[in-house]
């Protein structure tokens, strides 16, 4: 039932009304709204009950194991939320003067800039991008600004591996570039011959994720960096998979010029049902002048915003204020709790969990896409055999997992591997949970063989069965309308 269907005309939640209706003067009639917007008229209890019940229809990290590849669904510490929501932080207006009302929050943001520079091995940091995709935009816009500042404006292409996240090519286009795909070889590495053939005076840069979305570490990264740099292009690091190497390998050491981090992955800020994220960018020497503003500066006495006059070559602003500050605070609190020693352990245990899960799943009969390679923080199973023999696809396995109380892994991404499940357990899951997951996948495999309808018809136990996506797109129903 929708909240609108609970609504009764004239029902008012008086506790949330700021007093009696005041006199309405000074606004000429021609500006005034003549109808009422269709907002629910419900009591506070009805609203609270409705949304509490809706929450119970969700899977979440707090309630289920969430082995969603490339999304790093690790535990979001409650302490981070509580401390980021202290009244002093929440009440601070973005335009409050920093000298008298902002040294506390700016100190946290400054410290976070320093931490992110260290873990990536880079020279400068801007926290302002609101999400990974906006961080990518900032990174590629900086690459463009760098070439333009050198009068090197003939560069028209950004190279993107075919296994890349969809945001990579979409970002290249938003920055006025063409995206050119580079194929992957049979071991999951970038096809070097194709790369060498693709680079040239038109190459503005390359966008890479390392470990790649195939769950393997790109071993020849230094060689790739050399090839792209020799052609005059720059290297962009998509930080989606940084959890795999946090504290172990710094992207700066691999030769990257710019990195975006997904704090909602590696630094455990909440996914919130789809956001808000935070996608800070860090850069090496060459791109320092172009970082998006504002950034936090510190002269040894006072923290302040660095803005247009401090950074005349900046690509500019990406949001009205300074990005998703409340999320940045959560990441900062998380980073302080982990500390330097805790960060390395993230990579260690994320990798241990992934390799353990891959080994155990292979042992019970599943096929890994890259069995000769080490798993990083994630790995790929291919269910092409199961699909061919029993007609049970990767999607069917994913949906059946929901019945057993596990969120599905990422399916059908990357696009290169047929019938794939991309599995990322993260470091915060216990061995018992991983073992239970293996048992359930093995059981689903038995079901697929013996009673495939149970698998292809899943899920059976959730609030809804599989939804009619075709109807959803053809007969668009995007907003409720009051029955006539």
């Amino acid at each position, binding site marked *: 039932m929708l909240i609108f269907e609970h609504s009764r005309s004239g029902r008012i939640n008086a506790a*949330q009304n700021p007093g009696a209706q005041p006199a309405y003067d000074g606004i000429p009639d021609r500006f005034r709204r003549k109808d009422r917007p269709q907002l629910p008229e419900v009591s506070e209890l009805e609203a609270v009950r409705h949304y509490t019940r809706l929450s119970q229809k969700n899977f979440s990290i707090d309630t289920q194991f969430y082995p969603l590849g490339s999304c790093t669904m690790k535990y979001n510490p409650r302490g981070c939320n509580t401390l980021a929501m202290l009244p002093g932080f929440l009440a601070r207006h973005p335009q409050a003067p920093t000298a008298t009302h902002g040294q506390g929050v700016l100190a946290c943001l400054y410290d976070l800039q320093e931490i992110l520079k260290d873990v990536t091995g880079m020279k400068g940091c801007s926290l302002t991008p609101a999400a990974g995709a906006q961080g990518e935009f900032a990174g590629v816009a900086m690459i463009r600004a760098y070439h333009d500042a050198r009068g090197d404006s003939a560069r028209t292409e950004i190279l993107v591996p075919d296994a890349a996240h969809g945001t990579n090519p979409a970002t290249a286009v938003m920055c006025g570039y063409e995206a050119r795909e580079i194929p992957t070889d049979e071991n999951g590495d970038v096809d070097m011959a194709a790369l060498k053939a693709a680079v040239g005076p038109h190459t503005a840069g390359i966008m890479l994720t390392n470990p790649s979305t195939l769950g393997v570490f790109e071993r020849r990264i230094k060689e790739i960096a050399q090839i792209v740099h020799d052609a005059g292009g720059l290297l962009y690091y998509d930080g989606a998979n940084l959890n795999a190497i946090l504290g172990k390998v710094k992207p700066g050491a691999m030769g990257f010029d710019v990195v975006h981090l997904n704090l909602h992955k590696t630094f455990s800020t909440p996914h919130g049902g789809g956001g808000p994220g935070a996608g800070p960018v860090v850069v090496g020497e060459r791109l320092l002048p172009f970082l998006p503003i504002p950034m936090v500066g510190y002269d040894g006495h006072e923290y302040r915003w660095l803005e247009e006059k401090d950074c005349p070559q900046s690509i500019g602003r990406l949001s009205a204020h300074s990005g998703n500050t409340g999320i940045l605070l959560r990441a900062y609190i998380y980073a302080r709790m982990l500390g330097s020693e*805790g960060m390395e352990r993230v990579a260690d245990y994320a990798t241990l969990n992934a390799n353990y899960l891959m080994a155990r799943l292979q042992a019970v009969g599943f096929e890994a896409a890259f069995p000769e390679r080490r798993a990083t923080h994630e790995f790929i199973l291919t269910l092409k055999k199961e699909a061919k023999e029993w007609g049970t696809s990767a999607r069917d396995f994913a949906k059946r997992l929901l019945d057993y109380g596990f969120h599905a892994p990422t399916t059908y991404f990357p696009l290169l591997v047929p019938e794939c499940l991309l599995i990322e357990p993260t470091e915060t899951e216990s061995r018992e949970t991983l073992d239970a997951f293996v048992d359930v996948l093995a059981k689903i495999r038995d079901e697929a063989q013996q009673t495939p309808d149970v698998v292809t018809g899943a899920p059976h136990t959730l609030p809804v069965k599989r939804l009619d996506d075709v109807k959803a797109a053809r007969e668009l*129903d995007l907003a409720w309308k009051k029955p006539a």
Partner: protein
Amino acid sequence: MPFIPHTEDDVKAMLAAIGADSIEALFDEIPAELLAKGLPKVPPGMSEMAVSRLMHQRAAQDGMPLCFIGAGAYDHHIPAAVWEIATRGEFYSAYTPYQAEASQGTLQLLYEYQTMMSSLTGMDVSNASLYDGASGLAEAVLMAVRANRKSRSRRILMPATVHPLYRKVVQTIVQNQGIELVELDYSGSGNIEPEYLKRYAGEEFAALVIPQPNFFGVLEEVDALTDWAHDNNALAIGLVNPTVMAVLTPPGQWGRNGADIAVGEGQPLGAPLSSGGPYFGFITCKQEHVRQMPGRIVGRTVDLDGREGFTLTLQAREQHIRRAKATSNICSNQGLMVTAATIYMALVGAEGLARVAHACHANTRALVERLTHIECVEQVFSSPYFHEVVLRINQPAGEVLRALAVQDILGGYDLSADYPELGNAILVCATETRSEADIERYAQHLERILSRRKDGPICSRLVPKEGTL
């Protein structure tokens, strides 16, 4: 080890299952020269208790000043239930609802949000939100360029009455796609003079941006502006404050046919000020433009048994399907903020939101009346306003605001950098959360600060010079 559950026995058993000697061995594919040698700038780890002490100190450092700044972020009351529910783990720690069957809570909530925003702005459809109002306006501009079938122009008429920071953000985001922002001056009334647009007759524009209320708090002649856009083959983009939409004509009803796209900052709907984020941007449009909309959209459909259910739809517009041909690179929405906004709108309802809007208007009116009683403070524009007003004082605005801040009063937004032609001007706002006593406190401090400098310029200098506007 914070948040890592493994015991020593676990590690041994797991390494044995893998067939590796140590955890280090799992990194053997990484060339040795790439391995880091520590993190010198990252401090050692802290317990939750220790970090709690640090964060309490820092939060306290920023104080709890009395706020009369608006300028794109508004200090509204947020019902306690909003964040109690939004931070339930089932909302807080859920992923994007790609697995629809396991995400009906988030999906239904987004469908309700889309319904509320469509209705609030008088439009047909809404997406599931963008990052914030400023980047939302940039997306609206890009969308208008794609959606305008009558003109292939890549020029946008952007009034100077749009928030200066929004204009900067739009510039950053659209500049690499060959889109030109043409600045439109404001009149002495503090808004766009429809007559003034005649000078652009015959020129091609993809869209005209129409703020309501505008950055000065002044109301724009939205009907005439929308009709002008349509008469000149341009789309009309309404940039609106959502609280105000409870009582002012929404973009969908502007002029003869309504605006084409509405966009704005969602912060007033339940998001705390929080130094500027996270907030969310909303965007709504006429049905005919829905396939040019950026970002996630939720649709209602049925499941295999014919039961009602909700799912992400029209995903062929999005980057994870269309890659380089997507309508935007945006991947996330501001899910948690939209969760809060939906609960907020359900709790206050249409009547409550209208009362909040009225109370903001009335308090701002009371603030302006009280402050303009002070010698040397005057209202700059006499046009109708909503809940923000430009005041001019006879001393440097920055200095006066700093003196007020020392008294724990945030007296307004300094306009002198962005609008030097207005002189020592500040933009003030009093939401429903300000009381008469708050206003009196502000007035008394301002009066004292302004009168302290007896040698300051005389008040007759407040009269605007000829031709400055």
